[in-house]
């Protein structure tokens, strides 16, 4: 069984390795989130907003031309059609309702690609909450449109200038600011990372993805179980959502796709399960890219959302016990897969998502296999990167 235990561990990974200053915040969350989330009131508000505001259920689209091309039955789970353009909003809707119920007045969040930042700024506007987003200065440059979207939505975007100036440092900065403002502020973490209970809480909010997949597949294929589910992994929230209801269905293959950057052995990569070892990052024990001395290595990926030196503890566990297959896709292959999907299906995917698409060329499957690819986001935010890349 894949389940988080009482201390917040998935097997060897997880826990809450946080400074004492954050202990009251984490305890408050841990003690209250399950009971709040379980109330009918919460569920009603959550489901209504997912339906009328986010636009759920998202379609499970049978990709005819892509299926022909690869010789399998390929479905795309269209998270790109969510309001704000990615799966990230499933989580922010859940957490903002929770924050309100906890009596919080301010929201802080980290962001890499800017998708989580936009999704957070959006729900803050929706609920009239003060919003500050921490974003690495390099990401601010490469995801400009999302920075402006956050600002239009009324959020303050603060550059994280330390370290590699990407997602890892934005997360450090958000944690520091939470230490500085522990009473009235809720920190909306954007992936299945961080101290317990975040990884499980975020996964639950994202689990709506596989919940829908089940009935949609039953409708279309007469079987709620596909043969394979494929998703990209930055921290791992879209993958956790797409895998969640299949964790304990062993005949469903789970394929997690990491970013290999310029290549596994290039020194510029974010392929955590290949290059990482067990350690502690952002409050949980997980696999992370680090030196022999335990210093975190600055990762590289062309996609800001996958440019992270760790993965969520649940994915470290899935890897550890062999429940999921992990593949690593290089920048170039991802870009080409993104352009190919645009041409075959008329869908321009986020570059994060494009990594998952290339996995089709890397894994083995049979002709009639039903494969669901979690199309985690759309490519609008990545137009600059596509344009610079060229090749179309």
């Amino acid at each position: 069984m894949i389940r988080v235990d009482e201390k917040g561990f998935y097997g060897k990974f997880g826990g809450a390795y946080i400074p004492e200053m954050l202990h009251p915040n984490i305890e408050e969350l841990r003690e209250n989130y399950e009971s709040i989330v379980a109330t009918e009131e919460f569920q009603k508000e959550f489901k209504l907003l997912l339906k009328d505001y986010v636009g759920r259920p998202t379609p499970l689209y049978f990709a005819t031309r892509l299926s022909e091309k690869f010789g399998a039955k390929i479905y795309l789970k269209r998270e790109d059609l969510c309001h704000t353009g990615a799966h990230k909003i499933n989580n922010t809707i859940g957490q903002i309702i929770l924050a309100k119920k906890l009596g919080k007045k301010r929201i802080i969040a980290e962001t890499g690609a800017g998708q989580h930042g936009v999704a957070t700024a959006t729900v803050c506007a929706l609920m009239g909450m003060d919003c500050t987003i921490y974003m690495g200065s390099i990401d601010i440059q490469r995801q400009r449109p999302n920075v402006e979207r956050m600002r239009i939505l009324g959020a303050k975007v603060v550059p994280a200038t330390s370290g590699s100036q990407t997602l890892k440092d934005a997360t450090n900065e958000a944690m520091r600011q939470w230490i500085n403002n522990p009473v009235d502020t809720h920190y909306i973490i954007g992936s299945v990372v961080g101290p317990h209970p975040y990884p499980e809480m975020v996964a639950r909010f994202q689990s709506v993805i596989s919940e829908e997949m089940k009935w949609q597949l039953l409708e279309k294929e007469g079987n709620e179980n596909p043969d394979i589910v494929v998703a990209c992994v930055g921290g791992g929230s879209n993958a956790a959502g797409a895998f969640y209801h299949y964790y304990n269905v062993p005949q469903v293959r789970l394929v997690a796709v990491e970013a290999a950057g310029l290549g596994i052995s290039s020194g510029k990569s974010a392929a955590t399960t290949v290059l990482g070892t067990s350690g502690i990052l952002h409050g949980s024990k997980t696999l992370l890219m680090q030196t022999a001395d335990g210093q975190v290595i600055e990762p590289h990926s062309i996609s800001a959302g996958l440019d992270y030196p760790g993965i969520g503890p649940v994915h470290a566990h899935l890897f550890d016990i062999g429940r999921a297959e992990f593949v690593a896709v290089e920048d170039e292959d991802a870009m080409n897969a993104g352009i190919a999907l645009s041409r075959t299906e008329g869908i321009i995917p986020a570059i994060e998502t494009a990594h998952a698409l290339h996995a089709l060329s890397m894994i083995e499957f049979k002709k009639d296999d039903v494969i669901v690819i979690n199309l985690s986001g759309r490519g609008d935010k990545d137009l600059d990167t596509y344009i610079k890349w060229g090749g179309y």
Partner: protein
Amino acid sequence: MNRIDQLFQQKKERVLSIYFTAGFPKLEDTLPIMEAIEAAGADIIEIGIPYSDPIADGPTIQDSNMIALENGMSLKVLFEQLKEMRKTVSIPVVFMGYLNPIIQYGMENFCAKCKEVGVDGLILPDLPMQQFLDEFKGLFDKYELRNTFLISPQTSEKRIREIDQHSNGFIYMVSSHSITGAKTGISDEQVTYFERVAAMDLKNPRLIGFGISDAESFSKVSQYSNGAIIGSSFIKKIKDSKNLKEDIKTYIQEVIR
């Protein structure tokens, strides 16, 4: 007897602990800085083990960590530098470090090395109490290392009592809701918190840290505790120092005057 225990037996007021980052500003400065801190009259030396992602630290200590790492500091190098420290340093020495580099080094190796070179205690801010009790307490005891936990204005009375029960050496009171180096001046709200904890009659001595920067703040917080810890302000003083020994002496003697 452990040097920390000994210190607090003899001195109960205005204990001054100075934090600096190992290998900063120059790789080889570690031991000379320690000697200068002792010569200047401080009571405890707190050596920061540099880490790439110090989430409880403000910009000053973040920078000193980055520079120390660029200088080539690591636990291996540090233990080598401290091999003979007990020939020239007699006051208590405490390590402050994030868990990950220590875990990669190996907790038992680390504790054994600490004892070997003469380190007296540990402050590991991201080691939660439960994990400490479950996994590491036995090792700390075996190698006679005192373990210091942090408390903050948010820490409940119940938790402070638990922390007091499982700490030895001293308790580190974080002065406000903040990361290191954030605020200056001591507010009435902080004083209320200091008084509240002072009235709890804990078994461990208490040192107050974060935001203590000069003679005034040192004297003020010392009224409500056994003394204070200075970090960021000291780091700023030594960052561009041309004469470490002199500058450290002037700074510390000004604080404790």
